[in-house]
Each structure stands twice: as C-alpha cells, then as structure tokens.
C-alpha cells in the first residue's frame, strides 16, 4: 500500500482536472470572455464616445470588467462539484490545501487568459496607451492570482448553498478592492512616470495573505462541505 502522493503532484492533478473540464465545457471562452467584451462595448454608449475620455478611462474600465466579470469564473458550472464528487475527492485522501492550490492554479490560468483577451479588446476599443507595458507582466498575473484565490475561497465557503451563485460575486467584489486599486493605480503611476513598486507590493501582500488564509482554512472547509 502506498502513502499519499506528494503535495505538488496533487496540485497539478487538480489543476489539470479543472482545466480539462473547462476545455470541454468552454464556459470561460464562450461565455465569460465575450460577456466582458460586451461590457466594454456598452460603457462608451453610457458615458459618451469622446476618444480622449475613453483613452483616459480605458485602463480603469478594463480592470473593473476584470474584477466583476472575472468573478464569474468562480461561479462557472464546471467549478461546482456534486456532493458525490466532493465525497470522492475527500475519500481519495487528497490534501485539502493541495486541492485549494490546484483550484487556484486552474482559476488563475483562466483569469489570466480572460485578462489577455479582454485586454486586447480594451486596447482596440479605447485606444489605451501601452507605454510601460512590461509592468503588466507582473500586474496581470498578480491580479489573476488574487482573484482566483478569492474566487476559490468564496466558492468553497458558498459550496452547495442555494444562494451560492448570487452570494459569491457579492463576497468577492468588495474583497477584491485592494487588487483593483493595485492594478488601476499601477496604470496611473506608469502614466505619471512614478514608481509602481508600492502598488505591486500591495497586490503581492494581498495575494500572499489570501493564499495563506486559503491553505490554512482548507481543511475546516472540506469538513463543512
């Protein structure tokens, strides 16, 4: 009889399972991303189509769409498990912390894809100035990681609740404010020629704190479900 597999292979297995389920269902690619693009199309109809105005508000609108619509990746059908599936995972002896980390990894990959594709739409529609773009290589993964952690935590907290699909976005959106601030203020600081290190640090601290909270509370959450 063999013991429990090491932590990281479990993480990779969970992440691959979630990504495979998403690849089959295509919920993020065919629903969430187009929905985000539609939101970016609607905003100019509401605030006006002045090109200078849109260029100014473009980065902020992009991050708001990422926050509000990216949350939907946490409530996608393929992320929810039936009680039988949850029992099977628990009986397999998977480490709850590895399960949390694997789900965050898969969610982060999906959110990063969401950010890149919706970001391209935002650049095209709002003519966003991309100077200082290399910083995005740091800001986008940090925002994706933080949102994925929040989505996974909230998804676990609200698992199997009838009000869950309504509750998760409500729980995630206000908690994601530090990430939104970090991302939008980074864009603003780049535009002003200021350092963005403090904002990167804020996002990194929040992502780290959420990761620690998720890993430490994974077992009590598994007991609840």
């Amino acid at each position: 009889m063999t013991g429990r597999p090491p932590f990281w292979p479990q993480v990779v297995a969970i992440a691959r399972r979630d990504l495979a389920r998403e690849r089959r269902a295509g919920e993020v690619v065919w629903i969430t991303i187009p929905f985000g693009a539609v939101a970016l199309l609607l905003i100019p109809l509401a605030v006006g189509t002045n090109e200078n105005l849109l260029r100014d508000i473009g980065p902020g609108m992009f991050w708001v769409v990422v926050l509000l619509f990216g949350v939907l990746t946490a409530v996608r059908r393929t992320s929810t498990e039936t009680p039988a599936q949850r029992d099977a995972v628990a009986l397999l002896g998977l480490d709850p912390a590895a399960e949390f980390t694997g789900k965050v990894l898969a969610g982060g990959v999906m959110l990063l894809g969401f950010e890149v594709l919706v970001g391209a739409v935002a650049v095209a529609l709002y003519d966003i100035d991309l100077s200082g773009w290399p910083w995005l290589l740091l800001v986008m993964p940090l925002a994706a990681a933080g949102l994925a952690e929040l989505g996974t935590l909230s998804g676990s907290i609200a698992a199997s609740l009838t009000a869950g699909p309504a509750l998760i976005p409500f729980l995630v959106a206000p908690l994601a404010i530090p990430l939104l601030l970090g991302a939008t203020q980074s864009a603003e600081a780049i535009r002003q020629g200021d350092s963005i290190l403090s904002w990167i640090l804020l996002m990194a601290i929040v992502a780290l704190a959420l990761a620690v909270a998720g890993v430490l509370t994974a077992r009590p959450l598994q007991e609840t479900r």
Partner: protein
Amino acid sequence: MTTRAPTRRSIHWLDVTAVLGIGTALGFALLTPAERTQGTPARMLYLHVPTIWLAYVAFVVTLVGSVAYLITRRMRWDHVAEASAELGVLFTGLAVIDGMIWAKPIWGVYWTWDARLTLTAIMFFVYVGYLALRRTIGDPEARARRAAILGIVGVLQIPIVHFSVIWWRTLHQPPTLLRPDEMQIDPPLLAALWIGVAAFTLLYVALMRHRIELARLELALHEDATAPAGPVAGDAVSAPEVTAGRSRS
C-alpha cells in the same frame, strides 16, 4: 435534551456604565471649546472617531472569534464573531452616516469620491456579505466554519481603509488617533475625544454581552427544535410477534 434556561432580563452594571459614559462623552463633546477652523461642525469628530474606531475593533474581534472558533470548535467563539460583526456593521454604517452629515457643511456635499469614504463603504459591504452568508446556512456548525473563514479574510480591508488617507491625496483629514507620526490635536479636544472613544467602547462591550447571550439562546432553540423526538405515549406497546401461524404477545 436539556437547555439552559434563559437568563432573567436584568440591567447589568455594564449597561448602566455604558449609558453614563455616553452621557459624559456627550457633555464633553458639547462643552469643549469649538475647533478653530471648522467651528461647531467639528464636534462631529467626537461621534465620528469613536464609531469608526469601534468598527475597526469590532471587525478585529470578529477575526479573533473566527480564528479561535476554527482552533477550538467552541460555539461561544462563533457567537463572539457573529455579535461583533453585527455591531461592526452597525458602527460602520453610523460612521458613514455621521461622516456624511459632517461633510455637508465642510465640503459642501454629503458624498465625495474620497478614498477613505469609498473604502469604508466597501468595508461595510464586506461584512454585510458576512452576515448575508450566515443567514443562508441553517446548520450552526457549518455556518460557524464557513463564516469564520470569511471573518478572517475580511479583516484585510481594515489597514487599507485606515491608511488610505495617507496613501492617496484625499479630502479626508489624516488619522486623528492611530497615526504613525505625532498627534496634531489640542489637549482639551483630545481629552474629549478619548472620553468619547472610551464611552463608545463601553457601549460596544455592553451590546456584545447582550448579543452573545442572544446567540446562545438562538443556538439552544435550534438544538431543541432539531433534537430527536423523545418517547411518546404508546412507545412501550410492541407489536405482537407472529411465529408459525400463531401469535405470541
């Protein structure tokens, strides 16, 4: 199953002290000399600072109750977290409202897109979400466990709200009490402010005591309602056993 009888409703010394403390704080707030630049509207400081202070305290106590519950699994800690979150929402709401009332004569508007105001309103909604989550779960232990995790994560907002006035150039004045550098407030005003903070803290403790007791009674009621039914009349009568076509009672 036995349930501890509800405690007789009585006026506790904490309630009396809290009421006396609030009266004293009100007296100091009205009798202290007016602030030099803002005049009378600045007296809102003696309400605004204690309410936002208690919001912070309440949410930190929610964090402590949540962590303690997850470690000990004792429901009393969940009661502490729940009671404190409710009071935190109450005091945050009060802080937003009294802040808006103060803002009108000073800034000319009730609401402005100031970082501190906006983030405080967001903190309010984080804990409204906490209370909403609690209402959606019937089983007390599942509710306690799930809410505890949100109670831990939610506290991340507090340093961001508090330091927002330092990080961003905003209309809101810098922190009055908990600031990293030196105090910038006259001693008589500071004394009145500290009396207000102490009085409101007493009020918080008194309200916590009542709310925790209420949570304990709610749990006892739930346990009574979901306890397996006890023996009923007729239980002792057993059905006759039938063997080989003949009954044996």
